[in-house]
């Protein structure tokens, strides 16, 4: 058997070695568990480990592969799951005090599908309390730290997932995203983060109250675009247990990897993504656009007339939807929420029903405007976040200082860390964040690639073309 260096390892590299029996699933799982034991006390990426189950699954995978029963590219691959996704027999807290002892008696559909594909679930990853925030400063389980600079936040709410992937503590992770919670930490930690089209991956088994019903998506974090496609292949598709899941046929998402992008038109939305953007992010994004142009893509400015209403539509949707699941705990255990979350949940109770319904009508209008835009371009690109990762101190005081000015992290319209990602929660469009550069301080910067509904194939095509001519995704954090 070969020995493998976990630094920079990918599913795409490991899977063929497992298939050819050159690597043992049991050995690789043990290697990851050892690495987690060594680095997790420093990074706080995992909330709970599923060591016994992982070793048992690895032994089973080894036996099956040895006997020629290879299930596919995820067979024997160690992955992690965000802690607001149900895992049978493994604690699922949603980063909250209220669910501190909850052990589900069932698996979420996505977990069920990964297990059926032979994946090894290593454990549950840390997150922002109830997924209701993006700095992941968690008073109950500690704050996951950015592996590129441990004084900084990793983003969130799927923070532990991004840290685990970036720090090579697993080969991929499943997160959830109702405002940017997969793409935001992917951007700040330099990983790939995919929020597929609304309904593309079943949300059955997501902890209620960790995302609004109509804006929440399950998503995937991996080191490479190819790995992301491999995981989507196993997790996408209709689920009768989730009434919001879609029956639009799935594709083989690896098919468009490496396909030429010459002649494709890229939409650039002016204005909205200029809000508070820092010079370093602007420069990285401009360089990324140059790389896409070199590949033969043609940038074109597009207009979304009601773009300015997106923060209002997002807030008016997500607050009442998520609040409905908190009513019981608000009545029985209000002081088991952190104070900040308790106040915002109570304020959310005061959202009038007509505001909610009106917001859904405005959302349809905005979706139509995006549909119109996609008549003239195939893809939209935008920066993922206005700045590289803020420090924990920045988040505690509520602002960052960049380019000689103070930029608040929050305003009336909500959280600036998710301002650039919420348009694609409001519209449900498929969106991937990939690394498009590094700041002068060595922090990753992300770019979003957005396609029409259910055209994840286009997202993969463009992302893989970009990765093919850049090296950003090959860097490892200095651990």
């Amino acid at each position, binding site marked *: 058997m070969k020995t493998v260096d976990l630094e920079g390892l990918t599913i795409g590299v490991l899977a063929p070695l497992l298939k050819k029996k050159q690597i043992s699933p049991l050995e690789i799982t043990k290697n990851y568990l050892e690495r987690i034991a060594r680095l997790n006390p420093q990074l706080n990426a995992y909330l709970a480990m599923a060591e016994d189950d992982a070793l048992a699954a690895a032994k089973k995978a080894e036996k099956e592969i040895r006997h020629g029963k290879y299930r596919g590219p995820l067979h024997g691959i160690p992955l992690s799951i965000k802690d607001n996704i149900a895992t049978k027999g493994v604690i699922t807290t949603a980063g909250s005090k209220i669910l501190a002892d909850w052990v589900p008696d069932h698996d979420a559909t996505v977990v069920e599908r990964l297990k059926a594909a032979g994946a090894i679930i290593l454990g549950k990853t840390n997150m922002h309390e109830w997924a209701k925030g993006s700095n992941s400063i968690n008073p109950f389980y500690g704050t996951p730290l950015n592996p590129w600079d441990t004084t900084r936040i990793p983003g969130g709410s799927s923070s532990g997932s991004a840290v685990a992937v970036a720090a090579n503590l697993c080969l991929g992770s499943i997160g959830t995203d109702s405002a940017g919670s997969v793409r935001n930490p992917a951007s700040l930690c330099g990983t790939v983060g995919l929020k597929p089209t609304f309904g593309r991956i079943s949300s059955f088994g997501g902890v209620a109250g960790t995302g609004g019903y109509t804006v929440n998506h399950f998503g995937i974090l991996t080191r490479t675009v190819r790995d992301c496609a491999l995981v989507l292949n196993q997790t996408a598709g209709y689920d009768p247990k989730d009434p919001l899941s879609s029956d639009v046929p799935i594709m083989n998402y690896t098919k468009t990897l490496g396909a030429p992008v010459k002649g494709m038109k890229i939409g650039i939305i002016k204005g909205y993504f200029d809000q508070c953007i820092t010079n370093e992010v602007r420069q990285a994004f401009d360089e990324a656009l140059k790389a896409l142009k070199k590949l033969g893509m043609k940038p074109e400015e597009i207009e979304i007339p009601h773009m300015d209403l997106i923060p209002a539509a997002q807030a008016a949707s997500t607050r009442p939807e998520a609040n409905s699941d908190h009513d019981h705990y608000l009545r029985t255990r209000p002081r088991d929420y952190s104070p900040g979350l308790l106040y*915002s949940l109570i304020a959310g109770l005061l*959202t009038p029903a007509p505001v909610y319904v009106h917001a859904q009508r405005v959302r349809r*209008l905005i979706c139509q*405007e995006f549909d119109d835009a996609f008549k003239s371009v195939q893809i939209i690109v935008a920066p993922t976040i206005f700045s590289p990762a803020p420090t924990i101190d920045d988040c505690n005081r509520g602002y960052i200082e960049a380019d000689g000015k103070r930029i608040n992290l929050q305003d009336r319209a909500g959280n600036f860390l998710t301002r650039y990602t919420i348009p694609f929660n409001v519209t449900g469009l498929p969106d991937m964040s990939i690394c498009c550069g590094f700041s002068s301080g060595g922090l990753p910067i992300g770019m979003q690639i957005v396609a029409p509904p259910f055209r994840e194939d286009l997202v993969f095509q463009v992302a893989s073309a970009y990765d093919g001519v850049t090296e950003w995704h090959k860097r490892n954090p200095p651990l």
Partner: protein
Amino acid sequence: MKDAVRRLNEEYQFKLTDKEIDLVAQQAEEAALLFKPLFEVNVDGITPLTKVDKRERQILAPKKGKK
């Protein structure tokens, strides 16, 4: 808004302090201001969004603009 927060405080038994009531009321007032522009959009004939399936999107109403 403070009265509305006080009513909730009583109904849910939050046991909020006066300072906390002020904080929540301020947040709710900010949210009300944020939501106001939504009502400046003409959404006559547009039904609420529920799903983003292609089938669902094909029944979009005629395009409407700001009032």
